[in-house]
């Protein structure tokens, strides 16, 4: 099976976010950048599909305004076969990102194009659908189950309190949710994998110019919650808590 996984370099979820000068982005000082966690799950799903099929390759594609290879090297260490870094483009503006990605992806042949369901920086949930639209491919987003059989992908996608069944022909676009096919984490790189990652082929191409659709006017920290209080200790504090919830907070 020939599979492509789009991956994004994002701040580790453990990061305490600080706003950068100009208040239009974060302060990257001290931030550790990793592969977007949902993209890692997509990599794992793709590797398992390739192993099950017995042949094929898993190619990583990333759009990085700075052309960084940090995320791609981590993906190669996990086990993808080769990578394409598109240098340029933008962030926090999904349509131009999708256009740039589609421009490169349309030159590639694949059975399935994987994405994580969203990136944990922008939380936009749009690029997979937009790329599918631009490539005129079927799409299944927030996928929790995927079975490939007879040139088709039988999927289930997550909705509130349930799942929808979808059945699409290959090639298709899938965006993965945590837990897809029982996958909650990706495999950890072996020493051999980490060494091999240094020499696996990575191609860098330049992104064409793009037209922004959104304007990021300001980024700021959330308002501080007013300070709370410990109402008491142990069972004795229960009646007072309930009284406060009823009379002060008025949430009962």
């Amino acid at each position, binding site marked *: 099976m020939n599979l492509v996984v789009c991956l994004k370099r994002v701040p580790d*979820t*453990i*990061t305490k976010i600080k*706003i950068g000068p100009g208040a239009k982005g974060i302060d990257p000082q001290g931030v550790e950048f990793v592969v977007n*966690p*949902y993209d890692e799950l997509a990599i794992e799903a793709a590797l398992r599909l390739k192993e099950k099929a017995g042949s094929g390759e898993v190619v990583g594609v990333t759009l990085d305004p700075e052309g960084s290879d940090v995320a791609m090297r981590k993906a190669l260490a996990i086990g993808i076969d080769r990578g394409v870094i598109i240098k340029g483009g933008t962030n926090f503006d*999904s*349509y*131009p990102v999708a256009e740039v990605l589609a421009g490169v992806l349309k030159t590639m042949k694949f059975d399935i194009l994987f994405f994580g369901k969203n990136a*944990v*920086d*922008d*939380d*936009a*949930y*749009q690029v997979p*659908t937009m790329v*599918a*639209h631009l490539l005129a491919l*079927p*799409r299944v*987003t*927030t996928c929790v189950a995927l079975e490939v059989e007879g040139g088709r992908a039988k999927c289930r*996608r997550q*909705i*509130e*309190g*349930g799942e*929808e*069944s*979808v059945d699409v*022909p290959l090639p298709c676009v899938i965006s993965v949710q*945590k837990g897809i096919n029982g996958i909650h*984490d990706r495999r950890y790189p072996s020493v051999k994998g980490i060494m091999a990652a240094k020499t696996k082929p990575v191609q860098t191409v330049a992104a064409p110019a793009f037209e*922004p*659709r*959104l*304007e990021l*006017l300001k*980024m*700021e*920290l*959330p308002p501080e*919650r*007013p300070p*709370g*209080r*410990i*109402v008491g*200790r*142990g*069972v004795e*504090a*229960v009646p007072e*808590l*309930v009284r406060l*919830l009823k009379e002060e*907070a008025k*949430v*009962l």
Partner: protein
Amino acid sequence: MNILVFAEVRDGKLKKSSLETLSEARRAAGKLGGQAAAVLVGEGVRAHAEALGKHGAVRVFVVDQPRLKYYAPEAYARAVAEAYQKHGSGAVFMAATAMGRDLAAGVAALLGTSAATDCTGVLADGGRLSVRRPVYAGKAYTTVGFRKSPAIVSLRPNVFAAEESGGTSAAEDLAVTFEEADFRSAVRDVAATAQGKVELTEAAVIVSGGRGLRGPENFHVRDELAAALGAAVGASRAVVDSGWRPHSEQVGQTGKTVAPNLYIALGISGAIQHLAGMRTSKVIVAINKDPDAPIFKAATYGIVGDVFEIVPALTQHLKKVLAT
């Protein structure tokens, strides 16, 4: 500016989050010199036009065809885009539900623009529409403007007030001709999962359990409190990764982001990723035996002590108080 609102019907019911979105669209359109309209897509959805009229839609477009019974991403996007062309709005709004998140991307793709997802504020400063939305799982917020029309916006459920505005509106059938390709990603079937009687992202009250409950066999303590409150149940990443609870219950940066009126955290320490998923809850209660647990800094009210003593007592006390 006129605003068109996609109204979602699930299991024959109009979603409350769609009424919240329509109400906010009406308020925003008013500040921008326009009005709100709505579009219904599905099979047998025409009757919901009345509720939409009451909540401020001056026109309600209806695309009602048997093939639209279940969600079909390309077809629904096409239907909304055609309603938008017909209505001449400057913006398209929808609730950021599972369908809405997917559909906003599809509509935006068709119209060649980007959407602003899961917004928590709608602004009309200086006669221009902008929105406020969480990023980095709510660790930061951005204010976003639109360089291209229409602005496509999805609103976070349970943030905006649904409000009847005393209007009425008749359904206007909108004939849309679909191609086969519009159904290539269509949903075939929907199945409810065993859990999830009250959906986390739409719940007014949530009771969540973490490692402090010590094992999967103890989660009935959480569930009994939740039952007394009519609450949805959540869990921390630690207990999901340990296999004690399913991922559908996980609250946090790689789980669900929730904004209930009341969030009760039992035996949860309050890691950054968990807080990211629930810190906009209106009232947070924390029960934990460690007085230094970070959750107490975020909580409105806290009780320090043993969850196994405190929670059953709390459940009993609440049952008494709520019965009166």
